[in-house]
């Protein structure tokens, strides 16, 4: 075999001159081909995917799905299906111990909004309302076709702009304006940095653009699914395609009102995920099926279901407005963004937070303003996909950069070089940029594209001339109360006067002995801010300081706001 650094069929070009003093010369892995640890199983056909586990007496579960984008369920008649050959059990919403969930509730984020099997109303085409468990897949399909559902179609909305217009049909009663409520405060996620309106008046050009991205299906070659079977002593084993094993475990424990110690999850071999295998739909259903029948049960989407009801990367709509000076400096950028969450929250609310943390893209812009909405429509619920929360807006930003370059008559690579983050610059979300590399990437792109850069641009470096004035926070940031919502507990996703969270059935979590903080590890403190809410009660003296990876509470905004 060749010794050339190759990844797959592609030659990788390692430019050792870049950041040479920032890394050790002897890298152990980078630039060297490495075998995957699981590759032997893959090439011999012996990697154990979830469907590669055989069970004597395996039963098959299939769902009855809504043919309507929105409808009320008047009646579900299962009598004919119950008498069909091979049918072991019909499952309805009333059989699900806790038939309402939202994925991020495990992190105390969002309100439970999605039934496992809907009993009264459907909100997207393909939403399940019943399941059949039968001896064979074909028998389950026949019985599904024999279940009669009386539907009363309801008005639906399939477009984010239509969904937020007054009078649009409410997809979920808890969000009457079809907008997710952030932090119990606003109907959108805000970013405010400086004063864009004043900057637009000072700019030589104001450039506006509108960008849209369709939903994108992850389309793994292995369809999503799970097989559950009884184990000993009231435990259940679940083989699953999940790419988030503990997330699926927690979701199953919640939906089934069962301590997770009674659930034995086996996963880790995923036939392509790309974000689409986090939704934890199959595991609770397969385990419920095994509990109701006492037999092993497989719940697996076929390809049509994977494409129709498998949650895609959601659609996005972006309106971007830049104020730019004749010399190419962008002095203001304003975003209005809409994420199409589909009929339920799943992960879109969090995708928006992640997205807003990414604005205004990798460019140092002194005035930034963003309103980003998580909007409910009667489309298939959206979920994670590669570059979660980032891909759509990056497309909008980079398409817009080209448009701005055209407006000021610059080469688009030069415009990017001029505005790129440099180490030490202040970002719009008030963190210092570090480990920047866009300038170097642009220089290589220019070289490969045969673009001759002006000497001052060819001489730029991410590690030089950042910070200073570029690190200064705006003298004044314009704030507003637009989009205030009422009726939520402050700093929470719980609604005021809502019943307390159901007591979690099962054993209390074991008490962990407190860990002593590592010696010399400083506690991380945000600088005090005038607009901060009262601090949470001080942690017990023995609890460790926050360290290492960011906690979700910090990402979701509860910590720093």
């Amino acid at each position, binding site marked *: *075999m*060749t010794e050339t650094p*190759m*990844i*797959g*069929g*592609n030659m990788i070009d390692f430019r050792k001159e870049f950041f040479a003093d920032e890394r050790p010369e002897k890298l152990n892995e980078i630039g060297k*081909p490495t*075998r*995957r640890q*699981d*590759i*032997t*199983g*893959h*090439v*011999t*056909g*012996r*990697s154990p*995917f979830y*469907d*590669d586990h*055989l069970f004597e007496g395996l039963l098959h579960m299939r769902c009855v799905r809504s043919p309507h984008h929105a409808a009320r369920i008047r009646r579900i008649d299962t009598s004919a299906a119950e008498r069909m050959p091979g049918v072991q059990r019909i499952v309805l919403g009333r059989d699900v111990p806790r038939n309402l969930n939202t994925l991020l509730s495990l992190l105390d984020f969002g309100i439970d909004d999605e039934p496992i099997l809907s009993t009264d109303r459907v909100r997207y085409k393909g939403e399940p309302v019943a399941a059949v468990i039968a001896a064979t897949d*074909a028998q389950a399909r026949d019985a599904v076709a024999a279940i009669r559902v009386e539907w009363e179609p309801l008005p639906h909305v399939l477009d984010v702009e239509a969904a937020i217009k007054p009078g649009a049909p409410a997809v979920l009663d808890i969000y009457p304006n079809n907008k997710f409520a952030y932090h119990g405060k606003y109907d959108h996620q805000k970013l405010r940095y400086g004063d864009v309106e004043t900057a637009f008046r000072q700019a030589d050009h104001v450039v506006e653009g509108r960008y849209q991205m369709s939903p994108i299906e*992850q*389309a*793994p*070659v*292995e*369809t999503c699914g799970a097989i559950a079977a009884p184990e000993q002593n009231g435990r259940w084993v679940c083989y699953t395609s999940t790419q988030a094993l503990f997330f699926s475990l927690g979701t199953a424990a919640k939906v089934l009102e069962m301590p997770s110690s009674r659930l034995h999850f086996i996963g880790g*071999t*995923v*036939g*392509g*995920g*790309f974000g689409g295998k986090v939704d934890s739909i199959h595991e609770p259903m397969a385990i419920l099926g095994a509990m109701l029948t006492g037999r092993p049960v497989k719940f697996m989407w*076929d*390809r049509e279901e994977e494409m129709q009801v498998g949650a895609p990367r959601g659609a996005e709509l972006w309106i971007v407005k830049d104020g730019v000076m004749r010399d190419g400096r962008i002095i203001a950028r304003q975003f209005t963004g809409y994420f199409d969450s589909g009929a339920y929250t799943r992960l879109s609310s969090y995708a928006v937070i992640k997205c807003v943390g990414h604005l205004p893209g990798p460019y140092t812009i002194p005035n930034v303003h963003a309103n980003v909405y998580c909007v409910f429509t009667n489309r298939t619920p959206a979920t994670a996909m590669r570059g979660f929360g980032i891909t759509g807006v990056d497309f909008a930003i980079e398409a817009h950069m080209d448009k701005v370059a055209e407006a000021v008559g610059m080469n688009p690579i030069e415009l990017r070089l001029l505005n790129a983050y440099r180490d030490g610059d202040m970002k719009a979300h008030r963190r210092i940029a570090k480990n920047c590399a866009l300038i170097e990437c642009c220089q290589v792109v220019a070289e490969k594209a045969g673009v001759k850069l002006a000497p001052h641009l060819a001489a730029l470096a991410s590690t030089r001339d950042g910070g200073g004035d570029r690190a200064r926070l705006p003298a004044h940031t314009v704030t507003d109360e637009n989009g205030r919502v009422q009726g939520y507990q402050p700093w929470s996703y719980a609604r005021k006067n809502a019943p307390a969270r159901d007591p979690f059935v099962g054993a209390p979590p074991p008490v962990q002995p407190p860990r002593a903080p590592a010696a010399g590890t400083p506690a991380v403190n945000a600088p005090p801010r005038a607009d901060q809410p009262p601090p949470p009660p001080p942690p017990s003296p023995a609890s460790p300081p926050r360290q290492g990876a960011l906690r979700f509470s910090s990402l979701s905004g509860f910590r720093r706001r």
Partner: protein
Amino acid sequence: MALKPVTFTLNGNAKAAFTEDGQNLLDFLRRSVGDLSPKYGCGQGGCGACTVLMDGAPVLACLTLAEAAQGARIETAAGLAGAALHPLQEAFMERFAAQCGYCTPGMLMAARALLDRNPRPSRDEVIEAISGNICRCTGYEPIIAAILDVAEGRVRA
């Protein structure tokens, strides 16, 4: 449900098993025979994950009736290795030609069928041979490179 006996060879070994009316070869191999290397991806001939060789020719097991295997020579990815790995397996490992690994058994069998009938294929012929096999992870280039490595003798048998 009427059961019918099917006798055939699987990866060189004589086999006999019963099939049910209308059972496809994929379900038969996986559930009735226990060879789990062919995969279900679509059940409608669109993805190639279930590709196996029948008398040397690649077939989509999901669209082939199990009864058609009567008297046939069936080969799957599980039988590709002898005492040592097949050169295609070595090349796939070296070239990072698999990520999730789910399309790999079908991809390997499509490649094996190509090299058996055409030991020196061009790049275009390699692309044509795997055009019925979907890989969602790799972008195909490493797979093409791996097959060409074998065809052009860069991986020894």
